[in-house]
């Protein structure tokens, strides 16, 4: 599947729905789309991003690195970033790299855009304050 990103607004969050494979070939496009979305919010609004990964077929360390970079940038601007995914494979990768302890993970876009960080599902293994302190 070709890599694609669709951006939409929902409940005050910018929702980026990503499809396809995220690797060294597509990471630059992914990173640019993230930065464009973050920068479009600044400086008037703190960025609030939801990354919907439910249609991502493959992600490697390059893609995970982009997620981490976006998290650093969003939190540095006082904003929040959340992941949506329901793929056991991706859950495994997030756990291996412990990103699920850094970024809150939700099962659906609706949950991510409506729930507060403290309402994050248990699979995030998160004390919400842990992520916000980073």
């Amino acid at each position, binding site marked *: 599947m070709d890599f694609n990103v669709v951006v939409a607004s929902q409940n005050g969050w910018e929702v980026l729905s990503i499809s396809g494979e995220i690797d*060294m070939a597509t990471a630059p496009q992914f990173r640019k789309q993230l930065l464009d979305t973050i920068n479009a919010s600044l400086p008037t609004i703190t960025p609030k991003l939801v990354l919907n990964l439910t249609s991502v077929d493959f992600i490697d360390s390059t893609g995970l690195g982009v997620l981490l970079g976006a998290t650093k940038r969003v939190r540095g601007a006082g904003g929040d970033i959340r992941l949506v995914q329901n793929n056991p494979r991706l859950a495994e990768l997030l756990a291996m790299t412990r990103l699920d302890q*850094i970024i809150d993970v939700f099962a659906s876009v609706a949950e991510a855009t409506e729930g507060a960080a403290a309402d994050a599902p248990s699979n995030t293994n998160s004390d919400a304050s*842990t992520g916000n302190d980073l």
Partner: protein
Amino acid sequence: MNNSSSFDIEIPARAKYLSLVRSLVEEAAETKTSLSRTQVEDFKVAVSEATTNAIEAHARASSDETIKIRCTVDSERVEFRIADKGCGFYPDQIQPLPEPDDPDRLTFERGLGIYLMKVLADEVEIQSNKNGTEVTLVIQVGKSNTAVTE
């Protein structure tokens, strides 16, 4: 290896060939029906990581040479060997992954590749010197690998 079969390919050191390499892993693994879907997907990530590192190594060395990949399949294992002509590195000097609550963790955008290879493949061997790096990754048939989360 007993009753093994193998094939060799060479790919240009370009990121767009990564998906091709992953397809080859899929094809090779499909010959071993006892491999679980999780094992195959894990191995695809591991081989993709090694190939990504090889492509980056060639970019750093400004090398136009191809990356050589050998796949060997026998009754007990599937092996991928990825060889580049980059400048090499010191595998034992790779920084460990910081803890999630370590402020430095958010700056650790790179360096996950070798960590993932070691977790996702059953065997990993890295030989590196100033003339290049060769990474050998093995998935064993009949062994169910489990995720390491800590």
